């Protein structure tokens, strides 16, 4: 009755029903009425944890070593007790950041690193492909065994079956097709597959019911209850040993290790992460799943030990593989329907695992391995392609096919080898390598990309060396001596007693070394530097909870015009426009076009892309269109919370304190300068006071005397009044010059800049002083003036300079023999005017001093000498004027050899009138 076609038909019917459920769920989801939005469905879909390794393998393990199968299920129970701390957090993070896989999670956490995403993907693929092979083997074996009903025949060694008669090949092909149908119907930004989840939940029910049915049949059909089985087993010595464990610390050690290991595996296996985190519809579903999922595990394990014991007692030792007891016990009792149901249950376990695992892996391979590579190959022209959504789906489909192909290949090659039997735990140990970077990533902000890469790589290498390679060796693919004598025969390098660490089972040994290296690398390398801005931001998003999500990393902006086509390339135009439309509505806008080109839009687009191609690739793609203003460190820091802010703050503090130190020094200098200025100002005021008081003294004295004594004779009176008048003039001139200088110095002076003939101005100045020169009988020689020199300057000011210089010279030359010689000549760029005299000359030390206010050089002392004529302000004012026109004024002189004052002016007036503070 159970001919091959019946089994095949039943299988296809079952898969057909599953697909219908999936299609219906997808359909409902598209219409916004999710079928899977319930804690129960969530908890059941988590049952994907139980693969054929559970369905068939638990009994096998129990038959081999009693309750040794239990830790694999106690671990997840404990994990869910920690659900609030770990899972809930991861779900919130994943939702906020549109995480699509565990590779994406790790990559995103450490600054959206493509390298990390790729590394996690490679580890996951290497670690999990053999696990997929295990499923193929189980389905294929169960098919073969059931096909031989009513005989109970163990399947032939795998290699013995020709390729095209190998049912596993067809199983692999059918599963690939099924997975492609389930997983890659369309690209969803959140990378969620509601139909698949619904199907998986149903599969969980099927396998649980199937297993419970077998258990019930074995316990109550074949025996008189659980007590009966145990009582009978206790009577059979070789079976009784399975009832307890050896009382040795090592045994408890490996027991603990397995609990620990399965705790992580139930979180970090790609399929577990997919179902528990990515496919989660509502984080609150976790509430009930916290106990529903462990209950599911409890139920599916309820009859494992009784079935194992029954099998051991029923079949003569060595005739039937304990892994098949679930199937062969009903067969042995002619329960065809039950056996077929069990087969379907096993098929459920296998398909559930394969579908979710391959979808998860294909997403990782596509987003974190293939796309980043393709996008880096400019010659492919991908960056310019208009629509990449098809390509993405194509890559995923191929990834699914290839992963299953690899699984099958592994199954063919490994066959009955050791490697396949223990591969479940080897896979667990592989994904346990993700534990430090994932858990560290959500609890510790200090982790860096380099640390994560180092930890993962070190853990992976040690895992491969201590667990994977030995399993190859035990399968005969590597020389036996590798395990016994170590690599190159070096004892210390024995893979399962590395560096002489003995007394542990291989899993514990592997975990000790690999996690030690992993943690050491992760923490050690992370601590080498502070996280950079990008890592710190991601750390905040992951560790600080998801509440800060939505802040953009982008300092720049891009408009809808850039982002929509970009999104459309990966999501397809229709889906992209839909998403943008939703985004626009959520911001209270009517149309996509109204969306402003801001960071929020860029962030939204990046999130959409992240859902399709992973966060790392999304960042790269968005970066290609965003006109990123250099991302200010302050801007990034603003986004960060406590720790980062504290760090930013302390950095700021450090800078501030340095600034403060600098400022203090500057202040000290400034204070010094100020004090000097103050002293100078004091001196200046004192000097001004003196200069003003001196004429006032004469004026007051003569006025009082004239006032007191009206009888002063006329001659005296006239003389005194003349002095009063001249002192008043002197006083006025002084006041005018002080005001003039103040104006020049403060930049409030007014300038009228015109082209000026130098020769003409000099003559005019000389004319105005002719009387004074004649009075002192001093010769004024104007023969050295070149004609036709023109400068751009203020005519009156230039006159002032010339009058100053001439009267200054006149002041110091001796009467009668005095001689003042004026010269003017031009070079290509400037006009040079000189006023030479045959006076006493100026000491070299005073060459600059005389340009200070109220300092007049004479006789080598710095005290004021000339009284009636000079104010001591002429030279400083002249210098101010000449410098205003970009010229220089200086003196050349030696004591006793006369003095020569020179000034230059540019022949082109340059940009004088643009100067700040200048007039006109």
């Amino acid at each position: 009755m159970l001919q091959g076609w019946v089994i095949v038909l039943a299988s296809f019917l079952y898969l057909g029903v599953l697909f219908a459920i999936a299609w219906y769920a997808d359909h409902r989801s598209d219409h916004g009425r999710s079928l899977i939005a319930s804690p129960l469905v969530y908890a059941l879909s988590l049952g994907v944890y139980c693969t054929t390794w559970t369905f068939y393998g638990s009994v096998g393990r129990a038959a081999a070593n009693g309750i040794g199968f239990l830790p694999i299920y106690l671990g997840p129970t404990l994990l869910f007790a920690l659900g609030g701390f770990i899972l809930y957090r991861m779900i919130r993070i994943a939702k906020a950041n549109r995480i699509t896989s565990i590779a994406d999670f790790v990559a995103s956490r450490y600054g959206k690193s493509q390298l990390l995403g790729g590394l996690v993907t490679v580890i996951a693929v290497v670690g999990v492909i053999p696990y997929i092979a295990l499923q193929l083997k189980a389905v294929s074996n169960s098919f073969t065994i059931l096909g031989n009903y009513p005989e109970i025949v163990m399947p032939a060694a795998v290699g013995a079956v020709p390729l095209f008669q190998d049912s596993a090949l067809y199983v692999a092909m059918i599963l690939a097709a099924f997975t492609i149908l389930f997983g890659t119907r369309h690209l969803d930004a959140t990378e969620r597959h509601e139909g698949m989840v619904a199907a998986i939940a149903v599969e969980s029910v099927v396998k649980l019911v199937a297993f419970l049915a077998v258990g019930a049949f074995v316990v109550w059909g074949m025996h008189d209850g659980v007590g009966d089985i145990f009582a009978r087993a206790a009577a059979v010595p070789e079976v009784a040993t399975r009832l307890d464990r050896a009382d040795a610390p090592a045994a408890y050690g490996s027991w603990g290790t397995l609990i620990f290991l399965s705790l992580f595996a139930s979180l970090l296996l790609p399929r577990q992460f997919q179902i528990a985190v990515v496919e989660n519809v509502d984080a609150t579903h976790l509430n009930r799943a916290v106990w529903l999922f462990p209950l599911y595990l409890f139920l599916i394990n309820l009859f494992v030990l009784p079935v194992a014991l029954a099998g051991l007692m029923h079949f003569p030792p060595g005739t039937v593989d304990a892994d098949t007891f679930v199937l062969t016990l009903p067969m042995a009792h002619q329960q065809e329907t039950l056996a077929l149901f069990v087969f379907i249950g096993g098929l459920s376990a296998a398909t559930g695992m394969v579908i979710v695992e391959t979808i998860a892996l294909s997403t990782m391979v596509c987003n974190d391995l293939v796309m980043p590579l393709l996008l880096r190959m400019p010659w492919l022209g991908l960056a310019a392609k208009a629509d990449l959504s098809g390509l993405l789906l194509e890559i995923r489909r191929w990834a699914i096919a290839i992963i299953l192909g690899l699984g099958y290949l592994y199954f063919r090659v490994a066959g009955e080898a050791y490697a396949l039997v223990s591969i479940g735990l080897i896979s667990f140990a592989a994904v346990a390598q993700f534990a430090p970077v994932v858990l560290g990533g959500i609890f510790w902000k200090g982790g860096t990309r380099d640390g994560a890469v180092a930890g993962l790589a070190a853990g992976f290498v040690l895992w491969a060396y201590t667990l994977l390679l030995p399993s190859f060796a035990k399968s005969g693919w590597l020389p036996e001596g590798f395990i016994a004598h170590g690599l190159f025969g070096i004892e210390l390098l024995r893979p399962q007693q590395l560096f002489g660490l003995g007394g542990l089972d291989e899993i514990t040994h592997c975990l000790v070394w690999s996690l030690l290296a992993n943690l050491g690398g992760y923490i050690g390398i992370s601590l080498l530097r502070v996280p950079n801005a990008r890592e710190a931001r991601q750390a905040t998003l992951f560790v600080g909870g998801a509440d800060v999500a939505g802040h953009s990393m982008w300092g720049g902006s891009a408009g809808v015009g850039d982002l929509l086509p970009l999104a459309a390339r990966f999501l397809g135009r229709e889906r992209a426009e839909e998403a943008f439309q939703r985004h626009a509505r959520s911001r209270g806008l009517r149309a996509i076009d109204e969306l402003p080109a801001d960071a929020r839009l860029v962030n939204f687009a990046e999130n959409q892309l992240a859902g399709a191609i992973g966060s790392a690739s999304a960042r790269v793609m968005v970066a290609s269109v965003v006109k990123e203003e250099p991302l200010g460190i302050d801007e990034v820091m603003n986004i960060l919370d406590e720790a980062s802010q504290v760090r930013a703050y302390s950095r700021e503090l450090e800078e501030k304190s340095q600034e403060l130190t600098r400022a203090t020094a500057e202040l000290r200098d400034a204070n010094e300068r100020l004090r000097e200025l103050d002293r100078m100002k004091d001196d200046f005021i004192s000097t001004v006071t003196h200069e003003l008081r001196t004429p006032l003294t004469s004026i007051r004295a003569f006025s009082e005397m004239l006032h007191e004594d009206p009888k002063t004779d006329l001659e005296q009176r006239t003389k005194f009044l003349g002095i009063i008048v001249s002192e008043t003039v002197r006083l006025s001139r002084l006041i005018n010059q002080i005001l003039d200088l103040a104006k020049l110095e403060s930049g409030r002076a007014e300038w009228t800049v015109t082209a000026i003939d130098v020769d003409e101005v000099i003559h005019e100045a000389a004319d105005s002083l002719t009387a004074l020169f004649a009075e002192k009988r001093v010769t004024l020689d104007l023969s050295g003036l070149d004609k036709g020199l023109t400068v751009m300057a203020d005519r009156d000011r230039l006159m002032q300079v010339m009058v100053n210089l001439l009267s200054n010279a006149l002041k110091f030359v001796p009467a009668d023999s005095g001689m003042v010689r004026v010269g003017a000549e031009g070079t290509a760029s400037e006009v040079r005017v000189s006023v030479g005299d045959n006076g006493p000359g100026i000491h070299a030390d005073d060459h600059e001093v005389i340009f200070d206010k109220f300092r007049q050089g004479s006789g080598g002392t710095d005290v004021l000498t000339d009284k009636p004529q000079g104010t001591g302000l002429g030279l400083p004012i002249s210098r101010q004027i000449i410098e205003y026109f970009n010229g220089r004024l200086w003196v050349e002189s030696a004591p006793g050899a006369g003095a020569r004052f020179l000034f230059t002016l540019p022949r082109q007036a340059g940009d004088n009138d643009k100067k700040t503070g200048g007039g006109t």
Partner: protein
Amino acid sequence: MIRTRLTSQRLAFLFLLGCIFFNYPLLSIFNKSGSFLGMPPLFAWLMGSWVVLIALMAFVVERTRD
């Protein structure tokens, strides 16, 4: 709700409890021959404490549900 801190802490307490229940040295107490409700003591202990733990988790989560 799992979001409330107290619930999370209660669950974490159950986690610790489970770690103790399921591990050495407590296990060694039950690791002996004999029979409890017709089952070997170790098996009975593990399945019993497991289901009790699940019940406690359910109690903690469901009781605090609004």
